[in-house]
């Protein structure tokens, strides 16, 4: 097979690629990131490169202008080398977290691809009482073993088992051969003083790690929420249950498509699954690195990880082909994934450390929802409650301790601060509370951590739309009144826009605005979520008024103005006392499971109990959805308390 040498600039990296391999694929092998949101279909036109030397051929594309062609531009996904070549990856095609400029970061953020891991709210427990006893996924025990003698000559391994059982009731113990092979030497060289890490593995207890000396004071774990758009990670001291740090970043898989369906399709392409897998693992490893370094923790003392995520995300995390999730009858490969070694999935912690995933419910309702239900305690009460998780895939669970039913609606990432012009996640500097004076259109806002504003997060968008409606700047369809003239209102690239903060005042590269296109996206997102909730409640022949409590989850940071969320028609028209803001309930649930074996047993029960209602086959869903594409709703009688 003929091979060509390809040099990529400005990285100056060289790779040999077999003839016929696209320049994009070669770049990925070389570890060079080139943007591509269509997954190499030649559709998005984001993977442009400039040929500096040598010959290449390309399939025809309308994404390269005549002028660009003259300059040597190629779409890397459609082009292959014909000789040794040298190519430059231009700025607009690069994704480089080291050198990324504000402007690029801003553009990538819009596409939901880039964000540095940022500190976010840790997610306080929703139910204040301790529901689960402290028994983490991995615990460390320091053992001082009696030396063997003629009177006490049981084997080394049994000696360890006996010592463990003297401390705790552990009927089924197992140990891997690797540990047994080292055991004889290790016990003797350590003077019979060792620390064993015990992992809860699928109904048994495994001796995961045996280390010399006493390291039992240093036992850490990670809880992750792997969302389609956002990945959140939390470092926890497993001994003290203390949260040491929480970070979030956008899921880089968005390079290959913004929703799960596009990613499943992409996974079927050559190396597609591999690329998706790496995108998520790399992001998790970056977070693990940063959080352990910030807390001066040795990676070897991180003994376990617990991941909650939607079903597709978990498949991709484990490099399991997700193809069948989107094929009728929509069956995933696994909802209940056994505990494995974190390293098997590529997570860089202690090489023998464990990885557990929260069990999922169906193809489109995953372990993140199981974790959410657990965190809200929905399975422990007679009272009827509803959990609405406002994410890229909006999931809804309805029920109580006797029954539960779930549903999912594709809402898009805008409430997570992605896919909207000035969106950002709920972290430092995000505008989260907004008031607009109906007469002067003066904007008052507050940001997370009260720092200079740098963007708008989901809760900010909810307030902005409500305030724009109240002040008559937009109509119920979401269009800015064309007859208004004001310095905050202008025509932009994406229709009219309203300025929330001027760049001179906040020091950003551009004004912080909301455009008509943003409003349209937010309207669709809120419509999908409301429609799904309404359909599910109606399906059970209930009404919203029958609900005792509604839990609202999502990446909103610390705050959602419930009356405003009702005002725009995101949530049903109920008294605000009924709403409980729970934030990232998936991460909270994942932490609980990481810290208690009882919680994982409960989670399994929940996952088994929840049934799934498929909205896509429900003929009325589309109708309900279009009716919801209005502020607050086409059927105004459903929102009797909303007066615009």
């Amino acid at each position, binding site marked *: 097979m003929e091979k060509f040498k390809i040099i990529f600039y400005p990285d100056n990296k060289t790779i040999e690629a077999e003839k016929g391999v696209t320049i994009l694929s070669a770049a990925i092998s070389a570890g060079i990131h080139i943007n591509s949101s269509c997954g190499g279909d030649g559709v998005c036109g984001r993977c442009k490169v400039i040929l500096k030397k040598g010959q290449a051929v390309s399939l025809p594309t309308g994404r390269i202008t005549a002028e660009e062609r003259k300059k040597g531009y190629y779409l890397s996904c459609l082009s292959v080398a014909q000789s040794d070549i040298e190519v430059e990856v231009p700025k607009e095609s690069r994704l480089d977290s080291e050198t990324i400029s504000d402007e690029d970061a801003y553009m990538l953020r819009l596409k939901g691809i880039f964000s540095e891991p940022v500190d976010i709210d840790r997610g306080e427990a929703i139910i204040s009482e301790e529901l689960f006893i402290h028994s983490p996924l991995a615990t460390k025990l320091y053992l001082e073993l009696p030396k063997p003698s003629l009177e006490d000559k049981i084997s080394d391994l049994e000696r360890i088992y006996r010592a463990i059982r003297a401390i705790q009731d552990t009927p089924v113990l197992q140990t891997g051969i690797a540990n047994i092979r080292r055991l004889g030497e290790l016990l003797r060289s350590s003077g019979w003083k060792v620390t064993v890490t015990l992992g809860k593995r699928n109904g048994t207890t495994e001796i995961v790690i045996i280390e010399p000396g006493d390291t039992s004071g240093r036992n850490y774990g990670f809880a992750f929420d792997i969302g389609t758009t956002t990945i959140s990670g939390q470092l926890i001291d497993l001994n003290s249950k203390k949260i040491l740090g929480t970070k979030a970043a956008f899921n880089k898989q968005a390079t290959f498509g913004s929703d799960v369906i596009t990613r499943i399709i992409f996974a079927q392409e050559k190396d597609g699954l591999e690329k998706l897998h790496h995108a998520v693992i790399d992001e998790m490893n970056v977070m693990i690195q940063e959080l352990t370094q910030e807390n001066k923790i040795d990676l070897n003392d991180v003994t376990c990880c617990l991941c909650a995520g939607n079903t597709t995300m978990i498949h991709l995390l484990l490099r399991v082909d997700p193809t069948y999730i989107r094929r009728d009858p929509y069956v995933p490969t696994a909802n209940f994934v056994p505990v494995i070694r974190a390293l098997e999935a590529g997570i860089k912690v202690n090489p023998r450390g464990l990885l557990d995933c929260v069990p999922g419910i169906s193809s489109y309702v995953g372990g993140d929802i199981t974790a959410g239900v657990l965190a809200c305690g929905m399975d422990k009460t007679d009272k009827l409650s509803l959990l609405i998780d406002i994410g890229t895939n909006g999931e809804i669970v309805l029920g109580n301790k006797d029954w539960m039913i779930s549903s999912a609606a594709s809402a898009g990432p805008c409430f997570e601060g992605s896919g909207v012009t000035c969106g950002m996640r709920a972290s430092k500097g995000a505008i989260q509370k907004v008031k607009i004076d109906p007469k002067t259109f003066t904007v008052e806002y507050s940001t997370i951590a009260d720092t200079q504003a740098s963007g708008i997060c989901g809760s900010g968008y909810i307030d902005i739309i409500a305030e724009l409606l109240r002040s008559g700047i937009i109509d119920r369809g979401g269009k800015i009144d064309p007859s208004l003239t004001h310095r905050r209102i202008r025509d932009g690239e994406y229709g009219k826009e309203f300025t929330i903060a001027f760049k001179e005042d906040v020091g950003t590269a551009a004004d912080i605005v909301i455009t008509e296109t943003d409003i349209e996206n937010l309207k669709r997102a809120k419509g999908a979520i409301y429609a799904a909730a309404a359909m599910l409640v109606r399906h059970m022949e209930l009404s919203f008024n029958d609900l005792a409590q509604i839990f609202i989850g999502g990446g909103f940071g610390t705050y959602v103005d419930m009356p405003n969320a009702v005002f725009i028609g995101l949530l049903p028209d109920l008294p605000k006392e009924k709403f409980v803001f729970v934030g990232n309930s998936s991460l909270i649930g994942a932490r609980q499971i990481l810290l208690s074996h009882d919680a994982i047993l409960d989670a399994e029960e929940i996952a088994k109990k929840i049934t799934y209602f498929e909205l896509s086959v429900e003929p009325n869903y589309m109708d309900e959805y279009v009716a919801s594409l209005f502020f607050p709703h086409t059927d*105004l009688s459903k929102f009797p308390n909303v007066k615009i």
Partner: protein
Amino acid sequence: MALELVKDKWVNAVSVLTIGATKEEGGSRGRIVKCGGEESLPFLFSEGKIPHRPVIAMEVLDVEPDDWPRTLTSAIGPAIKNPVEWAQKCESEFKADLICLRLAGAHPDAQNKPVDQLVKVVKDVLKATTIPLIIVGCGEDKRDNEVLPQCSQAAKGEKVLIGEVVQENYKTLTASVLADGHSIIAQSPIDINIAKQLNILITDMSMPLDRVAINPTVGALGYGLEYAYSIMERARLAALSGDKMLAMPFISFVGYEAWRAKEAKALVLEFPKWGSELERGITWEALTTTAFLQAGADIMVMRHPKSVELVRNHIEELMRG
């Protein structure tokens, strides 16, 4: 025991839309047209009053149409070259209830006529006819926003019906129509929710409910008629059940749809088995129209004088009960 028919009881009626104003009312029309007001489903006289019969508007273009089949153009005759004569002929010879003047020449891809020329056509048609007028733009938002408010102003006092507004573009025209005392056509893409949303948006601008006509968009026989029919039926059921935001008369551009159908236009030479194109085109328009009469359409905008006659006779028969 005598068989008793099941009767539905309805709580709401369709609003009554008035088009045209006589001298006494500040206009210059010889008569006015009232439509809507139904208290029951179409022609079910036993369930409620149907105070006004469905009416027929005939379509007149400000420019000579270039895509109409010969069967259609020849029926109108040489007057088709002149909107004023064409309109007069619709009134005196074809007995239309209304004229629907479509300003096709305003479209940037067509003749992109200047506003004053278009306004003049409106004025001339008003002067030459005595029946009420409907004015429809070219369908290009920007151009319509430029042209239609001027036409609205020029026709002030005549209580014309002007359109069309859509969800993405309704404010400019609604404001003029409101100020000049006319009524408005709200167009939605065969979608009951969007129809209602647009009505809410328009009435949020304080347009009275009885000055709005819904164009739910229709499809010709063989081209989605059933779907359009079911949307209209649902909207009308909602209206009669109390939804005021859907309780407006329907205007259906049946002629436009029917004459786009291949079955209406194709020559007998092309499809010998299909029979005479003259008869076929007329039948296609008439059948499409009568179907939508049953769905609740109140204003039929039609093209061929012969199908107009057929439909008029059909309406008379239906209205006898």
